[in-house]
């Protein structure tokens, strides 16, 4: 267990007319190797929650344990925040707005330098991080971050976090404001990071279709509480409740529901578009006695949509 949260509560601007209770009793255990998706509409407390995880917000009520570091509202003993932040990396929304150095190299080196590493170690990590996000180290290291494109800036900013080699990586809306191909690139980057850098990943996203493509566990925040905490395929058994909370359900589920209502027999466990395609082909084969190969159709459909993304990853989960 890497992160344990117990009875966490948080209130903004207490005792003033602007008082808001952002978290009302949150309990959650995040395991090593989780690919956790957090959903919930604006103001549900998810951003406040993740900021607790690396000590950016001091605990008011409750308890958090991150690896062996305890966070409580007690003044002493002081938690080792530097150590905590080297364990838990945080990529904020629009991370490219935090770039400030003259060169890409210097900006990525900012985090490792703050960890007090040796120059040699910093060099290695910066090189590794820049290449991990898919940029050519020699070509980009001396460029000014402000002259890069939007997607490149974002990747440099993410490199700045992963150069600290966090065991847990938190990303808040990592694909916000990017075009479809930029989105695909960031998504496959996140998958890559899970394998090569941070074994535990937490992603906040508004886009349910996007989050179901990689998360293996989904946590739903509603009104400052954890409303649901389920394996990805199980969550949508609660689709009625999710809709009542004002949350979106995956497009594939909506389509499957419509088809089922029309009397077409489809199997269970449809969450992603790829699931839906599989079930439709199976149903068609059964009805017409044909033998159409699902994987072939799938390949041509998805490669047509997103030509330069790494789609193989998506299909692995079958």
């Amino acid at each position, binding site marked *: 267990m890497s992160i344990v949260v117990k009875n966490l509560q948080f209130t903004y601007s207490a005792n003033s007319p602007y008082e808001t209770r952002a978290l009302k009793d949150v309990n959650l255990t995040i395991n090593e190797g989780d690919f956790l998706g957090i959903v919930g509409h604006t103001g549900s407390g998810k951003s406040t929650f993740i900021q607790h995880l690396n000590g950016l917000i001091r605990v008011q009520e409750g308890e958090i344990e991150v690896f062996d570091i305890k966070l409580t509202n007690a003044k002493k003993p002081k938690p080792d925040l530097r150590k905590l*932040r080297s364990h838990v990396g945080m990529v904020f929304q629009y991370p490219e707005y935090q770039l400030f150095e003259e060169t890409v190299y210097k900006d990525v080196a900012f985090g490792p330098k703050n960890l007090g590493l040796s120059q040699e170690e910093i060099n290695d990590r910066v090189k590794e991080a820049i290449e991990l996000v898919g940029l050519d180290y020699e070509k980009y290291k001396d460029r000014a971050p402000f002259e890069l494109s939007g997607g490149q800036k974002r990747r440099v900013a993410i490199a700045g976090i992963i150069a600290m080699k966090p065991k847990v990586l938190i990303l808040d809306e990592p694909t916000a404001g990017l075009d479809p191909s930029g989105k695909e690139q960031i998504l496959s980057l996140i998958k890559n990071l899970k394998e090569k850098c941070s074994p535990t990943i937490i992603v906040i996203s508004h886009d349910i279709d996007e989050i179901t493509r990689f998360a293996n566990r989904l946590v739903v925040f509603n009104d400052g509480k954890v409303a649901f905490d389920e394996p990805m395929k199980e969550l949508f058994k609660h689709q009625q409740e999710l809709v009542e909370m004002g949350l979106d359900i995956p497009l594939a589920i909506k389509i499957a529901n419509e088809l089922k209502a029309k009397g077409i027999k489809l199997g269970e466990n449809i969450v992603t578009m790829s699931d839906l395609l599989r079930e439709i082909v199976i149903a068609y084969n059964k009805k017409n006695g044909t033998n159409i190969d699902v994987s072939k159709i799938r390949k041509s459909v998805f490669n047509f949509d997103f030509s330069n993304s790494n789609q193989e990853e998506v299909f692995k989960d079958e």
Partner: protein
Amino acid sequence: MNNFSFGQYYPTNSLVHRLDPRTKLIFTFVYMIIVFLIKSYMGYLFTAVLLASIIFTSKVPFRVVIRSIRAVLFLLFFTLIINLLFYNEGKTVFEWNFIHITMGGIDYSIKMLFRLTLLVMGASMLTFTTTSTELTDALEALLKPLTYIKVPVHDLAIIMSIALRFIPTLMEETQKIMNAQKARGANLDTGSFFERIKAMLPILIPLFVSAFRRADELADALDARCYNATDKRTKMKKLKFGLTDYLSFVGTIVFAVLVCLDAYMAGGAYIDGLIFSVIMGA
């Protein structure tokens, strides 16, 4: 950052909040001049009672108003010390090396302390009870006569309202960038003076970049809607004086006259003298 209270609007929908912003602006202007004219302790007491009743009517909690002094506490303390040390008139009460503390000095520095406190609290009452939009509207309306001598009043008002509008946005932005850099292990709270200034760079540079970006976007948005600040525009919310506003004007005049009586005919000083002699006698 969350305890930032000086000048933050405090919504309660009280009588004071509903006053016409022009009334409040005029009152604050008169009040600030008048506070500098007060000569006697009676005058200060009178003004303090007036301010207290305004605070009471506004339903803004006293502790919130008191908190607004915290921002200038250092200034208050500093002037107190300077006045005590360098204002040398009247009987000497304390003497040591170069330090002379006189009765006149004590009297003067206490009065200065009262004056600054009343000033800050009064001024923050204006912003506690008036939104920045109302304030700009009021300022524009009051400065309108200046358009006859070709002062671009509306342009100035729009500049002011944009500046006020972006204070909270930039504060929020600062907080976000600070968090992002802290998450990258930035150390903002320890180290020598120069180290701390250097540590501010990772915050200031992105902040400036984003401020310029916002300014650019805003300018584009204004252009896209054919905004032209000099043409005649109508207002959605027209300012209108009501009964309470007229009563407030009367109150303001009475207040000003009373303080002038104190200042120029020494009315308050006479009562001060009476009270002192009673204390001395007892």
